[in-house]
């Protein structure tokens, strides 16, 4: 191979790299990618690599205990809204507004584990499949030039996230999420603490408007977890780990 042809091949490989990434993705991942694009069009990622890395570390920790084998992508977006979103294929976003409300790494583990459960149970993907959008995605998302089709899918995804899921899907994600976080080694009682804090916002604050319109009330979710036997789960009563508290504080200060 001559130097010129080698350089040409290298240039081609670089140019085609995004296409190759898309081609390797499953339909579910392609749909999730498009949904993530819609959400990230409304709010960008927080510009703190350290905080993003931390969220991914905690996220991978709970995701591993789910047993699902996805390429996970966790991120914090800059928004005052208090909410978190799970996209098909392993894309998970939470708002800086929600992250600021959390008080410990265990709280963060619960929020991320709840979203991981949505992904592993394919809650959003099933809605998209029922609407016939998944097939459209598989046909069109490989061709990066078909912007209109991608935009259509992204918009449809936006509608799903604005409308929310069935209540049973939310209860199931709470239950599975608590299992994932407890298996990973986090305190399951943190889930009750987060729901306690969310309940304080009920009907009082526009930051929780979308969360409360798309989810059962935190008090219902709290009661459902109690009914599921959350207080039978093993729990370390020892003092919280100092290092864990310290690194959470660093994260909290960075967002």
């Amino acid at each position: 191979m001559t130097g010129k042809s080698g350089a040409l091949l290298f240039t081609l490989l670089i140019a085609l790299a995004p296409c190759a990434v898309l081609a390797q993705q499953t339909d579910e991942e392609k749909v999730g990618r498009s949904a993530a694009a819609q959400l990230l069009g409304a709010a960008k990622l927080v510009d703190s690599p350290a905080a993003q890395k931390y969220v991914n570390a905690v996220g991978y920790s709970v995701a591993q205990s789910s047993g699902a084998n996805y390429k996970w992508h966790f991120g914090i977006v800059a928004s005052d809204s208090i909410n978190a979103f799970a996209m098909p294929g392993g894309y998970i976003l939470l708002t800086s507004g929600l992250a600021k409300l959390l008080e410990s790494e265990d709280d963060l583990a619960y929020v991320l584990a709840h979203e991981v459960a949505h992904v592993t149970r394919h809650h959003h993907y099933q809605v998209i499949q029922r609407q016939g959008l998944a097939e459209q995605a598989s046909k069109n998302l490989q061709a990066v030039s078909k912007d209109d089709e991608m935009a259509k899918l992204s918009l449809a995804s936006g509608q799903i996230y604005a409308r929310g899921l069935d209540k049973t899907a939310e209860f199931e994600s709470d239950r599975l999420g608590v299992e994932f976080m407890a298996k990973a080694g986090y305190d399951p009682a943190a889930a009750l603490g987060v729901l306690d804090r969310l309940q304080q916002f009920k009907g009082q604050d526009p930051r929780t408007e979308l969360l409360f319109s798309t989810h059962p009330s935190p008090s219902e979710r709290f009661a459902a977890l109690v009914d599921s036997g959350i207080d039978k789960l093993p729990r370390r009563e020892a003092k919280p780990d100092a290092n864990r508290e310290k690194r959470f504080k660093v994260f909290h200060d960075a967002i």
Partner: protein
Amino acid sequence: MQVDRALLGRLRSCLAAAILLCAAVCSAQVVREDLILLDKPDGKPMDIKLKGGTPVKALKRQGFWVELEAGGKNGWAKISTINYSTGSGGPSAIDTGRLGTGNIVSTSAARGLSAKDLLQGKANFDEVEKLEKLSFDLAALPAFRTAGGVQPGGANIALSAAKPASAGKPGAETQKPSQPAGEKKKGEGDDW
């Protein structure tokens, strides 16, 4: 316009009484089964026995324990011993010892990610590429977990799908993703 101060005073008293009554009723819970209250979380039994169906007031939650008041006496019980579903106040009526009102500030508008933003926003695939580059190096995970004292909680942990978490739909129609991704690696990672 002249105001009858005595009438205003009586109205204020009535309003205060109504608020207190509502607070008491709204935070009422019911004991599920006969139980004996403990002197502290996981503590010793006290001489306070409650029959199933007894109304109680949940005062404070600590982990999986809740301090109850019944008939002027206080004691602790596991959270599952009371029926949260019957109390319209829900858990928000309970002091967890960590809650304050200071962090709840009403704002005129939330920035980003409202339903309108989601519907009217334009997809941003450049940000997705940034998100995809944030993927965590799995080799660093054991070190991260060890540094934070996060030890596996056991494989047999399971909650029951009790009401209202019937969880049959739509999640029951599970499908495995057709292509697994994300290989797990072992090894040392970052210094956390």
